[in-house]
């Protein structure tokens, strides 16, 4: 994974890997704690992403939105 904030699908993929690694077992305490923390962070991130999808509903006609976008440029 890159250093940038992972995307939702990257986060879910990594989370699945972490969970199955932990479920397979056989790692030390350090690694367990590290994986758990990473997993918990990813979960928070995923939930945050879900919340970010909520917002207001814009319904605009072509002309209004074009005028609006033009005025924002200035």
């Amino acid at each position, binding site marked *: 994974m890159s250093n940038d904030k992972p995307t939702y699908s990257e986060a879910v993929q990594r989370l699945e890997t972490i*969970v199955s690694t932990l479920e397979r077992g056989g790692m030390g305490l350090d690694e367990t704690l590290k994986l758990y923390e990473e997993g918990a962070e990813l979960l928070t991130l995923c939930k945050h992403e879900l919340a970010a*999808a*909520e917002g207001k509903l814009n319904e605009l*006609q072509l002309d209004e939105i074009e005028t609006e976008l033009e005025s924002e440029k200035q």
Partner: protein
Amino acid sequence: MSSRSDVTTGPLPIGQFVQMVRRTVIQDPLFRNQALKGEVTQWKQYASGHTYFSLRDNDGQMNAVIWKGKCIVDSSIKEGSEVVVLASLDLYAKRGNIQLVVDKIEPVSVLGELEKKKRELIEQLKREGEFDRARRPIPPVPKHIALVTGAGSAALSDMQRLIENRWPGLRRTVIGVLVQGPKAAEEIVRGLAITRKLSDPKQAEKRGEPPVDLVILGRGGGSPEDLWAFNLEPVARAILASPIPLVSAVGHESDILVSDLVADLRASTPSDAIERVVPARNEIELFLDEMNERLTIASRRQMADCRQVLAVLQSRLLVAPIIGLNRAKGEVIKLSARLKMAAHQSLARQSTRLAQLEASLIAIHPQRVLERGYSMTQSADGTVLSSIIGLKSGQDVILNFADGSAGAQIKKINSEGKK
């Protein structure tokens, strides 16, 4: 007699009867909005603005009317033109004529021409490699969807309803455009240009919302001509120029349009588009809850395993010195046993050797020689005489035998071999 005649005062006036027939004719859905194909005859455009004609083929014909301003009539239509009309049946009571009321009329040749242009555009895009380009992936959870579709259209309300079912409050911007008619392509292109602007993070930041990350270009079903804007090059180019993933959701299941071919995802209908790109929020939340639970359980179990390993190590640590001592003690015992054994063996070997020596000694003892008939001579002082040298006549000697001894006197001395 039927009950009808009981309530009728006399024969039914024809006008009433014609109205009854008309009601039946116009109410039958089979006769509404039918697409019909045929040849134009008796084409008459009146000064009033209405147009009358007959639609015919070899098996039948019917009168038809286009009311003034009802639809655009292609100027190429004339006597003998092959046309496709969208029409509903009506009955003109005054004359008792059944006629087609036309909502739309297109010369077949125009449609043929359009089809040809569509094929050419597809060929051209194929040559340019536009169909081989990598499709932009659809975001698993879109944060801001732009719906480019007819304002107030059924397609829009279907999409809105489905979005609310699947993800209540999902952020979306509806960009209302004309989706049919001569201005449709231009408006769609403008609408898509707006989505490009809304997808710009800087622009979005100014507006205080996430950038648009998915575009749905949608329109409900219709006749091929209705959907034609989606087969035009400017629309195709605008779709290709989209910096964000775009879903083409135009028409019905079977309509394949150029917009479908160049989009990142083709949905068969606007509703299908929503089903495919808007995840069901409760399912995702359920999944994340489940992951959370699995993560916690697995981590706890792993920690318990670690603790158990620690406990085992601790108890081993406690008994380790004792085990070490015992092992050392065992070594000592083993070594002392080996030492004992070695000593014992060595002694046994020695005693065997002694016995052998004793046997040898016994074998060579003088007594054994005496027993065989030899005797040993000693001088009076006990010296064993083994030679005649030094012997003197008259010297006293002692003769030793096996069973005793006897005193004797040397009488004569002979050198060896001369008896």
